[in-house]
């Protein structure tokens, strides 16, 4: 069925609304990566099987909905029952029968499945009230976790494609751009370039054709916001791109998705096929003159392809080596034609901005960084997951109020933002307001929004080594400073981790970093030394401990630590069984010992010991 006019779209929306009203209760089951690993697909099937046999008032098989990531991954798999918003977490397949019989049939709450705040012991029935959710404001993620990403009807019933209808009904392209400019929206991919300015430049470019590209190559380790949007609400990305195409006069677009996100590819493809089927993509969209079509381009596992010129070469089927961008890619982009490249989250904001207006959006966040930002919380933090908060929120609000603080109530050491191009911020920066400029002023960056929290058991020299290793592997190898510079920087960093570094080499590293930053060809190299520079800026004492005293305060660097079993050991044999070096000896129920010579410091024993009977010295 082709929806060939705006009136038909409105009519269709009303029809779906009426139809969906019949389904009073909704059981939302998160099939995001986190919950999926916990077996949420099995839970979904179990619900469907039982409900097929059972007749319950207001509950149909269609009530069971699979959704994208609901955010609170630490508590997954989760089942949410709407409209009451009952939040069951850490659900297992065996619980399904109980949920159906007690909650759905009798309206009883199963308390043991509810969320209990570990600090206050308060039990929450409704998800919206949980502190993790209460502080959030969702714009880009508005539908993620709420709708079935496979159903275009779910998107439409929640107001989807009405922004598109709005512009087609009565906004000129420059009016659309005007709204985007006024909203103050800045690119969510990292650099924070004004989206409106990008669109204006492309729209005005005389060369044709114009392309619209969506960057879904979320390569930053520790970030998964874009993944969740592409998987959980693919139509919002499409709608954002179609609006952009209208504004800049484009007929062809690509979504570049990383290979590591297979589900995102599947869901996006389904969305594209559906949109095409209903006349929301292709020729004469909604019966107007607008013609725009989209294709998915799959990346091949190269971090550097997140860089715009490399991404464009990759879309064109070439190797993803960046080129110097002295002519901006918005003018000479894909196939050397004017191209708008925005990231997934940026496009996801567009429909809301059009719908609610630039002023509404600009009022959220800070003056220079408007709106909200999605972050992925990971690392040694209690409430790992996906969040969206207004810009300007303090780091500590994110980490403590939403994130629930550090695992095992250990001491916070640092938070890494911005991925390999970003940096680590120490405890005295927890009062920082999170926005593009503040983070950059403090030696880190917003990046795409990954936040990895580190506790006192993390070694910052090791963290720097980790990122440099990553960058050495991911450097395309084209220009000398990045290829050779990062390689040497990593080697020197490794020496420090082994306790063999010298103070002169530290100085050499700092000097080398300067050349890599100003001498490299693309953003990967230009920001490559950031992990090193930000850790040495805030944690110089740790570097000095490695260099001067051959000590690793974090207890991580293998060459500088020894493992010892203390008197708490109850002889459970757990450590012995994982010791690949056969360095642990001891009888059952007797204290074990570690042979320091044989021990290769892999740390497996430490990781499996449940009673803290192993010390790192």
């Amino acid at each position, binding site marked *: 069925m082709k929806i060939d006019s705006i009136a038909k779209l409105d009519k269709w929306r009303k029809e779906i609304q009426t139809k969906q009203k019949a389904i009073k209760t909704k059981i939302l089951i998160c099939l995001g990566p986190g919950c999926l690993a916990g077996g949420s697909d099995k839970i979904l099937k179990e619900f469907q099987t039982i409900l097929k046999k059972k007749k319950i008032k207001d509950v149909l098989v269609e009530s069971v909905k699979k959704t994208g990531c609901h955010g609170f991954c630490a508590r997954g798999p989760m089942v949410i029952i709407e409209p009451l918003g009952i939040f069951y977490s850490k659900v297992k397949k065996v619980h399904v029968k109980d949920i159906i019989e007690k909650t759905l049939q009798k309206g009883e709450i199963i308390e043991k499945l509810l969320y209990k705040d570990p600090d206050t012991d308060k039990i929450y029935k409704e998800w919206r009230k949980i502190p993790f959710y209460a502080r959030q404001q969702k714009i880009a993620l508005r539908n993620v976790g709420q709708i079935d990403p496979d159903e275009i009807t779910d998107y439409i019933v929640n107001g989807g494609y009405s922004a598109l209808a709005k512009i087609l009904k009565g906004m000129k392209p420059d009016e659309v751009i005007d709204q985007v400019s006024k909203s103050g929206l800045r690119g969510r991919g990292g650099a924070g370039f004004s989206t409106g300015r990008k669109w204006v430049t492309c729209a005005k470019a005389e060369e044709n054709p114009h392309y619209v590209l969506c960057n879904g190559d979320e390569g930053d*380790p520790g970030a998964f916001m874009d993944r969740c949007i592409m998987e959980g609400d693919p139509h919002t990305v499409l709608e954002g791109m179609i609006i952009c195409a209208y504004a800049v006069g484009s007929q062809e677009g690509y979504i570049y998705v990383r290979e590591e996100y297979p589900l995102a590819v599947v869901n996006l493809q389904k969305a594209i096929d559906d949109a095409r089927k209903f006349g929301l993509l292709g020729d004469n969209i909604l019966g107007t003159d607008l013609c725009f079509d989209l294709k998915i381009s799959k990346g091949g*596992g190269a971090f550097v392809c997140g860089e715009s010129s490399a991404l464009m070469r990759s879309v064109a089927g070439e190797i993803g080596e960046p080129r110097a961008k002295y002519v901006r890619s918005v003018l000479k982009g894909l196939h050397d034609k004017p191209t708008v490249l925005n990231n997934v989250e940026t496009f996801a904001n567009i429909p809301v901005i059009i719908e609610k207006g630039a002023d509404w959006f600009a009022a959220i966040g800070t003056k220079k960084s408007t709106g909200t930002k999605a972050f992925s919380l990971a*690392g*040694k933090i209690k409430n790992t997951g996906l969040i969206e908060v207004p810009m300007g929120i303090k780091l500590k609000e994110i980490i403590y109020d939403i994130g629930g603080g550090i695992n095992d109530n250990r001491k916070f050491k640092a938070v890494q933002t911005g991925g390999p191009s970003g940096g680590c911020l120490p405890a005295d920066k927890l009062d920082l307001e999170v926005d593009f400029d503040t983070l950059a002023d403090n030696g880190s960056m917003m990046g795409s929004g990954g936040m990895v929290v580190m506790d006192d058991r993390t070694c910052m020299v090791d963290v720097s080594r980790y990122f440099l290793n990553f960058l050495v592997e991911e450097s395309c190898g084209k220009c000398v400073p990045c290829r050779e510079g990062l390689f040497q920087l990593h080697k020197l960093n490794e020496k420090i981790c082994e306790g063999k570094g010298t103070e002169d080499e530290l100085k050499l590293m700092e000097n080398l970093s300067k050349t890599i930053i100003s001498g490299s060809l693309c953003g990967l190299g230009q920001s490559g030394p950031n992990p090193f520079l930000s850790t040495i800026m805030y944690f110089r004492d740790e570097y000095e401990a490695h260099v001067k005293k051959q000590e690793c305060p974090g207890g991580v660097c293998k060459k500088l630590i020894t493992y010892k079993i203390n008197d708490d050991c109850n002889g459970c044999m757990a450590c012995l069984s994982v010791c690949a070096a056969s360095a642990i000896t001891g009888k059952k129920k007797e204290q074990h010992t570690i042979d320091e010579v044989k021990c290769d410091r*892999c*740390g497996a024993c430490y990781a499996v010991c449940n009673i803290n009977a192993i010390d790192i010295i």
Partner: protein
Amino acid sequence: MIIDSNKIQKVIDDSPQDKKQLIMILQNIQLEFHYLPKESIGLVSEYLGMPQSTVYSAATFYKSFSLVPRGENIIKVCKGTACHIKGADLIIDQLYAGIGIKPGQTTKDMKYTIEVVNCVGACAMAPVMIVNDKYFGEVKCNRATKLVKKG
């Protein structure tokens, strides 16, 4: 392992004959054979009318392509930031102890291949291991080998 060139040709013939689709065609071949057989480089180059070196260059630039046969079961250990600080290395060590191969290697019986991937975007459940597209979160290192063998 002997791969029938006709089979490769068939995969190629089903793809658009467009230089811009080079990476996609290579992906399609890999999807079918789990790696890029040597012959495929020449066949793709012929099909698209581009030099073999260009095809080979792309096949070696992108990490997801493998030019050597891979095992029946692909084990991916995530080494994203979150997984790193939560002990991804331990999983790799334990897998080495358990099945005797390191990342990038394949067991002699062609049963397992271990690969390290840079973040699969499931950071909230770090450390993460993926066995044939099945995700395992919060992997305890001493259970890694068991999880792999169970599949």
